[in-house]
């Protein structure tokens, strides 16, 4: 199908974009990569009167890494963030998650910030931002505000971005200490939206004992769910930890829904199995001497499990 008619705006600078968004208010939408918005328009599920195309704002096409984390501008494509070596060293979870976002061709155009604003409960980046406790910077005519991940996602396909507002960047903080991460999911085919996905971070002390274990989930809750699973693992080493217990606890604490892709029971089973697996891999990465004090282990061979069903 074809999109409904709209007025097209192509601002050349951020101030011009904010002016336009302010003028069109409720009837306007930002067009970023269009990889979620244009399918919605093509299927006539939305009919905004105005589209403000931000693809001309090349000043926002950046990925900046410093000692504290990675800031991703609104026009950075998924593929650019995924390929960025500094970002990968500082926050490995970004690449670990991004390579599960759709297919490379979609990642060439879709933006990471756009996928956060889109707030799909199956969107990998929502889990990454939530697990890391990151934030999104919003701008409007006459002001900016920063919203933490916990407040940013308000419902399925709903974020707190208001009419007239635009997300200008997202911030992904670096995890401290001897921390390893992993992102795995189960999808019917690699690149499809996941039936369940898990982003995990495990922190070890200098004796390689687990001091913290947390996981964030996709496709099992209306907004990204972050669980602290430390109680089942604290004090154990990656060799002795009882990963299945952590998986059981996670399954107890999630209440997935059934849909055409998977039943609630199957999703809960996936939570159990994928949690155990993701935590184990994250812990092994954290224990890797190469990781030293800071960082999440940058094993590129990592996510072999990504298109798996659920064995264990």
């Amino acid at each position, binding site marked *: 199908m074809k999109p409904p008619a709209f007025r*097209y705006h*192509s601002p050349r600078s951020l101030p011009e974009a904010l002016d336009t968004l302010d003028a069109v208010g409720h009837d306007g939408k930002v067009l970023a990569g*269009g990889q979620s918005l244009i*399918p919605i328009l*093509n299927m006539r599920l939305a009919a905004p009167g105005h589209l403000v195309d931000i693809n001309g704002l090349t000043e926002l096409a950046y990925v900046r890494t410093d000692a504290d984390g990675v800031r991703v501008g609104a026009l950075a494509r998924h593929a650019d963030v995924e390929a960025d070596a500094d970002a990968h060293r500082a926050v490995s979870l970004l690449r670990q998650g991004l390579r599960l976002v759709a297919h490379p*061709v979609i990642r060439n155009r879709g933006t990471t910030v756009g996928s956060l604003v889109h707030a799909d409960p199956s969107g990998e980046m929502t889990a990454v931002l939530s697990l890391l406790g990151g934030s999104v910077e919003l701008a409007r005519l006459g002001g900016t505000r920063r919203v933490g991940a916990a407040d940013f996602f308000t419902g399925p396909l709903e974020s707190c971005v208001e009419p007239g507002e635009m997300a200008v960047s997202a911030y992904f903080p670096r995890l401290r200490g001897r921390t390893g991460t992993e992102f795995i999911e189960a999808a019917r085919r690699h690149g499809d939206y996941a039936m369940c996905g898990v982003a995990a971070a495990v922190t070890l002390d200098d004796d390689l004992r687990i001091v913290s274990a947390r996981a964030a989930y996709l496709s099992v809750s209306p907004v990204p769910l972050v669980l602290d699973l430390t109680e089942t693992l604290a004090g154990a080493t990656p060799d002795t930890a009882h990963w299945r217990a952590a998986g059981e606890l996670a399954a107890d604490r999630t209440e997935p829904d059934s849909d055409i892709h998977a039943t609630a029971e199957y999703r809960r089973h996936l939570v159990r199995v994928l949690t155990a697996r993701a935590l184990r891999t994250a812990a092994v990465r954290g224990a890797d001497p190469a990781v030293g004090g800071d960082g999440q282990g940058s094993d590129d061979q990592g996510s072999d499990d990504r298109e798996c069903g659920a064995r264990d």
Partner: protein
Amino acid sequence: MTEQMHEIELRVNGVLRTATVPSRRLLSDCLRHDLGLTGTHVGCEHGVCGACTVQIDGRPMRSCLMFAVSARGHEITTVEGLADPDGSMHAVQQAFRECHGLQCGFCTPGFLTVIAAYLRDHPDPTEAEAREAIGGNLCRCTGYQNIVKAVLRAARILNEGTDAPVAEEAPR
């Protein structure tokens, strides 16, 4: 509301083209209907099938998920632009022919544009990598086996020249 129209200039396969389009004209429809370049096919119009894939500044993207007005100022390569100006086929096209990588041909333009871009960055893919590279494109005819072979064969032609022997591409 009278529909807003745009006079646009697009650089397609190295040629500057002009068209008058409404804001909502998808790039895929602009290529096919306004510019008469019907090599780009349209299947699903929501990004899933890959038939409409073209290269924008050398990177493969879905032309059904882009508006023609947004493509101004970018270099667009469609399947028509893959062959040499003298008509000799691109290595990927030649490999598809040799390996029987197509039957009805509906999906083929999308595969060709994706694979041509992929092999530029990954000149020597393994079979697993070849499968991953085409993972975003659907084909209802071939069962994919011959398309995977064609990716490997095209890599070989690009690396060794067109007279590389047509032996069965051995999976690695």
